[in-house]
């Protein structure tokens, strides 16, 4: 009898736990789902409170069309965002793979000093040096260009991604390298042929962080991109939401937020373990 009671109480505890888990999951997912569903309402309906969240007067993509009529449209800022994010990924991967390899496998003057200096930039808020960054970009002719923004974003990624890549290279046993060197591989072929296949999980992690960082960044893009044709999605959507293009169309805001969220969510769901891995590596150290 005692056994039966303990089993039923364990069952009840299990149900209570899963009920809690489900309620919490709904609370966390609701705002996202609510927005994605509401964005598919016809324009008229999207102006009303989203109760219920799904379209009741027919499914429509009208809001995306409306969004496209504001300012320079939806496609141009989306293109800017894609360009900036992809370039940030490409260059932060190249720069930090090279630097990670250099810091891991070579001894050279000022090595430790340089490594510490690069890592310690993470302690300094970039928010406090935006004005000079603006002036530096003007000086080198990258003022108000997406390339300039990419340079800034890549620099902001470097402490984390160089740290990640150095650890990834450190984890590769020296014997593999020595064997390849016997076979006559030089430094560059060694890096590309021998090392890259071994450190690719680290590369996926830093690429993911670089993409999310660049895609979501707001303040630097707001300050540095003054020309409307250079706006990234967050800047363009904030301009729209502040009523800069006339009356605020909340249907268009829902559509825009959906466009901003979906790439992050898909990438995260596909590459979840790389993301968590990056967080853990940061947390453990």
């Amino acid at each position, binding site marked *: 009898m005692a056994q039966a009671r303990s089993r039923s109480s364990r069952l009840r505890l299990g149900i209570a736990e899963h009920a809690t888990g489900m309620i*919490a999951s709904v609370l966390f997912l609701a705002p996202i789902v609510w927005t994605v569903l509401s964005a598919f309402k016809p324009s008229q309906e999207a102006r009303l409170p989203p109760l219920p969240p799904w379209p009741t007067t027919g499914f429509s993509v009208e809001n995306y069309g409306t969004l496209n009529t504001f300012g320079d449209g939806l496609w141009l800022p989306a293109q800017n965002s894609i360009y900036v994010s992809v370039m940030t990924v490409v260059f932060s991967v190249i720069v930090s793979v090279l630097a990670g390899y250099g810091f891991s496998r070579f001894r050279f003057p000022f090595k430790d000093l340089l490594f510490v200096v690069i890592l310690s930039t993470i302690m300094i808020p970039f928010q406090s040096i935006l004005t000079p960054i603006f002036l530096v970009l003007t000086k080198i002719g990258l003022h108000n260009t997406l390339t300039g923004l990419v340079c800034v974003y890549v620099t902001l990624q*470097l402490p984390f991604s160089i740290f990640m890549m150095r650890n990834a290279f450190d984890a590769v046993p020296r014997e593999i390298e020595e064997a390849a060197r016997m076979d006559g591989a030089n430094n560059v072929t060694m890096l590309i042929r021998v090392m890259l296949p071994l450190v690719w999980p680290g590369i996926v992690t830093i690429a993911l962080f670089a993409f999310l960082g660049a895609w979501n960044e707001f303040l630097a893009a707001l300050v540095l991109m003054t020309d409307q044709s250079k706006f990234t999605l*967050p800047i363009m959507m904030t301009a729209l939401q*502040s009523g800069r293009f006339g009356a605020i169309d909340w249907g268009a805001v829902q559509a825009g937020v959906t466009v901003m969220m979906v790439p992050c969510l898909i990438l*995260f769901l596909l590459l979840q373990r790389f993301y968590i891995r990056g*967080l853990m*590596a940061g947390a453990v150290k």
Partner: protein
Amino acid sequence: MTTITATSAPARPRKLVGAGRRQWVGLLYVAPAVALVTVFFIIPLGMTAWMSLHNWPLMGEHSFIGLANYWAILRDTRFWNALRFTGWYTLVVTIAIFAVAFPLALFIERPRRLTGFYRTSFFMPAVIGFASASLLWSWLLNVDSGLFSPAAFDLGLTEKKVNLLATFQPAFWSIIAMVVWKVAGFTMIILMTGLQSIPSELQEAAMIDGAGPFARFRAITLPLMRRTLALALILSVAGSILAFDQFYIILRGGPRNQTLTAVYWIFNQSFVSFKLGYGAALSMILLAILVALSTIQLWLLRKPEGVD
């Protein structure tokens, strides 16, 4: 993770062929990174310090004025108000985040069915940006087209639709709710890594000795999580002190400029009023605060004595 912790290869003497040349090659590999950090971080950092000693308008000549900007800051009550508000916000939001994230971390740490699903759903808001989250909530919080006010009105909780963003208290707590929603999953994962690093034998031994769940939490979980807790705390505090996006997008610093944060005030001085020198001096204050925090962080995160 294991690959990263098991890294430091035992240093053993070996002969390097052409060691001299190889050394300098290393510098070439790190050169692009060093160049970027120098041009877009070190130089701007130096310039901030330099500019803070100048009267520096956007157009026209700048002139050296010594410490005058810093004296002006002492009398800038609106900056101190912004700083005080930032401190209050940091305190409240950090407590709120931990109050939500810690139970969640304990919940997902124990393996059971659907743990993966729970973990992923709690974490989802953390991967969308602060700007997206703010835009999303600015809609949900809107008095006419949003969710909360109309829903409360329809349910008969309020007599008319209440504009949550019109007065300080509801606006402030709305932001807190939004940030907790957005950040709790992130803090949860950090705390989870700490929980997982506690050997389960310790908990079992304590259980056999008759320690209750609360005693176990206090005597084992908390002390062994010291470094993780410190890290999560510092990330939350540093992030909150630098808060800008949500206050700019949802509240525009309002109602009545009561929710201007430190970064918001620097932004206004530098890029709305174009007082670049004064903005730089304000930035130096912010920077000093963050560096002090980082120093505390290094002290809190130090490895326990005798343990490598």
